[in-house]
């Protein structure tokens, strides 16, 4: 069990879920679940472009995710509903990404790794990128915590007290792009949104304050990573999806245990 690559996988997963925990809470509170998924889909285009241009995948994904987030923010003032806009952008960038990949002849197999992640192939430099990005996101969210929270409760209350909710939203979008970029290797494009949302949603069932929900999400995420690695080792299943399955099972268990709270949550 204590093979070197398993230890690296564990630390890679922990880095991602720790950064995803507070961020995932905001994604849930602000009803941005689809935003996370859309950013992740856009990342495929980032992967394709970075492979074509031989630059770091992390940089390419980060750039495209940010571009996508900024474009959505700009376009959302033009009269389209957010979900429509995200639908257009997410699937368009996914399609363009897949088409772009086909021009790069030798990466067809690699693409599967980016769609589903390959946490067991995480190397030392990947680990450095993941923990660098995760640390940055954690610092950003902790630094802006009060302001982010107030902006989430009410933009007007934020304005009245000298907090600019648009700036806070930008910080959130930026953090989201960073997490997507670092998490691609771990769970892949298709399951990143799951690591953002499921631990946070599960933690909501047992939390009375925003802080406890964020900590709970981190704990649930960390447990899911450990359980997912253990499960995939013993069951010989793909690791990224097994981690997400573990989180989903935790969510289901908590929903049953925390019934009175879950009634309020479902409302």
């Amino acid at each position, binding site marked *: 069990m204590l093979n070197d690559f398993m230890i690296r996988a564990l630390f890679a997963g922990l880095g991602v879920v720790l950064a995803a925990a507070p961020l995932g809470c905001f994604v*849930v*509170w*602000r*009803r941005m679940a689809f935003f996370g998924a859309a950013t992740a889909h856009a990342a495929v285009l980032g992967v394709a472009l970075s492979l074509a241009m031989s630059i770091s995948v992390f940089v390419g994904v980060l750039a495209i995710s940010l571009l996508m987030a900024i474009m959505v923010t700009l376009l959302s003032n033009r009269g389209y509903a957010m979900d429509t806009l995200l639908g257009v952008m997410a699937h368009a960038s996914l399609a363009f990404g897949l088409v772009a990949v086909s021009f790069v002849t030798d990466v067809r197999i690699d693409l599967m790794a980016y769609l589903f992640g390959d946490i067991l192939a995480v190397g030392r430099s990947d680990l450095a990128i993941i923990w660098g990005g995760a640390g940055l996101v954690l610092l950003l969210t902790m630094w802006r915590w*009060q*302001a982010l*929270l*107030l902006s*989430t*409760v*009410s*933009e*007007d*209350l*934020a*304005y*009245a*007290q000298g*907090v600019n909710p648009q700036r806070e939203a930008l910080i959130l979008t930026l953090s989201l792009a960073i997490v997507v970029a670092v998490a691609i290797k771990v769970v892949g494009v298709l399951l990143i949104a799951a690591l953002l949302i499921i631990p946070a*949603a599960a933690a*909501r069932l047992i*939390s*009375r*304050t*925003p802080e*406890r*929900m964020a900590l709970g999400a981190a704990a649930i995420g960390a447990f899911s990573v450990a359980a997912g690695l253990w499960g995939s080792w013993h069951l010989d299943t793909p690791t990224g999806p097994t981690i997400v399955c573990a989180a989903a099972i935790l969510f289901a268990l908590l929903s049953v245990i925390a019934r009175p709270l879950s009634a*309020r*949550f479902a*409302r």
Partner: protein
Amino acid sequence: MAMSANIMNASQQPLLRAQGLNIEIAGRHVLEQIDLDLMRGEIVTIVGPNGSGKSTLLRALIGAIQPTSGQVRQASGLRIGYVPQRLHIDPTLPLTVRRFFNLPGRHSRQAIDDALARAGIEGRGETPMTGLSGGQFQRALMARALLDNPDVLMLDEASQGLDQTGTADFYRQIEEVRNTVGCAVLMVSHDLHVVMRAADRVICLNHHICCQGLPEAVSAAPEYRALFGSVDEEALALFRHDPHHHPHGGHEHHGAEFHQTEHDDAQ
């Protein structure tokens, strides 16, 4: 208007000043040529029919809406306690009353308990915000706005959802606050009887400032009567405002009425 207000309070700088404020939203002129000074210690009430731009004016004053032209100036370091018309807290966000009061600045346990007691919702600190009744919620919003010792208290139809005792308490609290804290109060209200009793100055708004001044002067002004009828009439009848028979409901004639404001100020 701004000039006459200055002469009246020559020794004082206004806490808040709007100059030539114009706001267009989606091609509609919501606010036109608003000049407004708010001085320390005065209670100013804005009255006007539905859709006349009352909430927009408050939101422009806190900086939530950028004016199309004109400007809003806040005294430096101005603390605003803002009580919005509505506040929806997403049920996925676990937020106790105490946690809500600690946004964005932290307060001592004692200070929050005292504020809750003053607001008539003693011992509700650990209740989730979503578990409060409409009236309790409104009281909590008000208590939170007062917690920071604001220079300006802004209330957007904040007595909504309060029962009769609640409303009476509410306005008593406003006068008390003005007398003890010494802040300015700017409120939007539909409750004309209370307005006439509690306000130092009434602003009658219908996209532009129709008239303003002492409550007695405004209620006698033809512009006000055109909007609300005579104050002596049954209170409910005052709200039956028919825009088609409104002599200055359009945006074209505001220049003529505008002089009325100077006249009223001088009284």
